[in-house]
């Protein structure tokens, strides 16, 4: 994939999230996928492995679907009433292209407004995208936040 194809795809992902179509979002992930958000306290977030370091999120496909499904419920109290979000994706770079697979990086800023409080989650996301018969799918997404803690944000109950 070239950069504009990657951009189109990431904008589509962002649009689904901002519209709270979380289950459609989860359908963008492959059966062997992994969605991760490292902890702001992580010493080396690009190399870190959730198998031996505490992350904020490390979801394989069952939990990606579980997360998406949970967020559709009124009993997901942390997101009820639902917050408003806006995902901004910029500085997209294609960093590798091998057969079906494309690796890309992008900067992001996600704004969340809950009640009258707005906060921002900013950082860089690393993607492995794959071309399938059904279209482009995400095999791996790792978000690295430019934060030292979630002191201002409190929690991370939206999808980045």
């Amino acid at each position: 994939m070239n950069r504009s194809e990657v951009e189109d795809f990431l904008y589509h992902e962002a649009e689904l999230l901002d519209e709270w179509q979380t289950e459609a979002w989860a359908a963008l992930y492959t059966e062997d996928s992994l969605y991760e958000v490292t902890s702001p306290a992580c010493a080396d977030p690009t190399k870190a492995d959730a198998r031996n370091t505490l992350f904020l999120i490390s979801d394989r496909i069952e939990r990606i679907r579980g997360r998406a499904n949970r967020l559709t419920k009124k009993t997901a109290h942390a997101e009820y009433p639902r917050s408003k979000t806006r995902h901004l994706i910029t500085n997209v770079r294609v960093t590798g292209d091998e057969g079906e697979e494309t690796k890309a990086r992008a900067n992001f800023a996600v704004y969340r407004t809950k009640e009258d409080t707005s906060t921002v989650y900013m950082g860089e996301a690393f993607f492995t995208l794959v071309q399938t018969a059904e279209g482009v799918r995400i095999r791996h997404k790792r978000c690295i936040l430019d934060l030292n803690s979630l002191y201002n944000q409190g929690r991370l109950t939206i999808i980045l």
Partner: protein
Amino acid sequence: MALHDPVREEELVKAEPAKGSFRVHRDAYRSAEVFQREKELIFGKCWLYLGHDTELQKKGDFHSRRVGGRDLIFIRDKKGEVRAHYNSCTHRAAKVCRERSGNARNFTCPYHGWVFSSEGGLVSQNAQTGYAEGINEDGHLDLRPVERLEEYRGFWFVNYNPNAISLYDYLDGARDQIDALMDHTEGKQIILSGEHTYSIRANYKLLCENSYDGYHLFPVHASYFDYLRDQLAGTPGEGLIDKTLASYNTAGAARALGNGHAVLDSFVPTGRPVAQWLPSMGMGTKAEIEARYDSLVRRLGEERAKYIAETQKNLVIFPNLVINDILSVTVRVIEPESHEKIRVTAWAMGPDDESEELRALRLDNFVSFLGPAGFGSPDDIEMLEICQDAADHTPIEWSEISKGFGRAGDPLYAEGPPDDEVQMQAYWTMWDSVMRRINTLEVK
């Protein structure tokens, strides 16, 4: 009439055993003035958790932490001794350590260049002239050590009252719970890599109450149990959830352990990496977990082994340390910033001798439920924030914490079923007696 008419301090906790009534005045959560008194009496007199021994692996390793509103450097000095210094230069106040953690032989104050050793001694004033000979003979210019620093099985606590009773006595029945945790392994329990740090807009006591509250489980965590059911559908574990949860209110216990500490023992079918294997954990870890159970039996006997392996334990050590030994182990410290804002830091703990696979499972369990992005904790946090908000903005005087009250003689050692509130009654009884100086926690 004001929104909240302030009450007298001796009337904040009202226990009437004959009526089975235990009430806490909401000023205890919403009053800035009460919080000022707590800073002096609760955080100035109780033992407060600083950190775990295994966070200081090498000589010179340090963490700078705020504990009960005071900035400290938690360090293993170059001789290997653990210390806690106040993080302020004895010259004109600057912070001598601006990093969250690291390794250091010395701390050089960035302002005028005074140098302090890892033991805290002043080694240079960065000046050729002007100071009288022997100005630091009495050591008053060394980094100030905290008044008291003691440990129990690797858990280091500080106390800002030099006359405080020992940590050992203070922990009382909580020692047995710490033993149960540290005895998980023949090896060593260690703080694992990484941490969660986040904030909550709520009073610190609301999070303590929530941490061992069996009563809230079903309403607050319904979506988590839905998720567990979905995960187990069509597997041998299907049906286990509803079977175990059906006896939730009768199978475990909430137990007060003295000095305001208490534990909730319960049974929730998540599986426990310590030594309780369930099909949902995958065949890969079965043999190792069973071997770990055998080791518990060998070392501690059948009854204790079963307790350690199968019971989910939510422990609160008064006033602000939570140790949850549930589907994973978390050590969580609650640092109050005001009457309505807290900073939470949480770590994962696990044995140093477990396989990579079991370690991965333990951490995966952790993030599935716990932490600011899990499927459990954020829903708890939302509850605390709506409690605080509503207490702040309504005139209602009392919170009713009566469930199970009046059966036992001394609330500090009461016991009840998991969905009772005896653990909170113990907490508030202790809180009340410390706030009213009935219990000074001092050596006579």
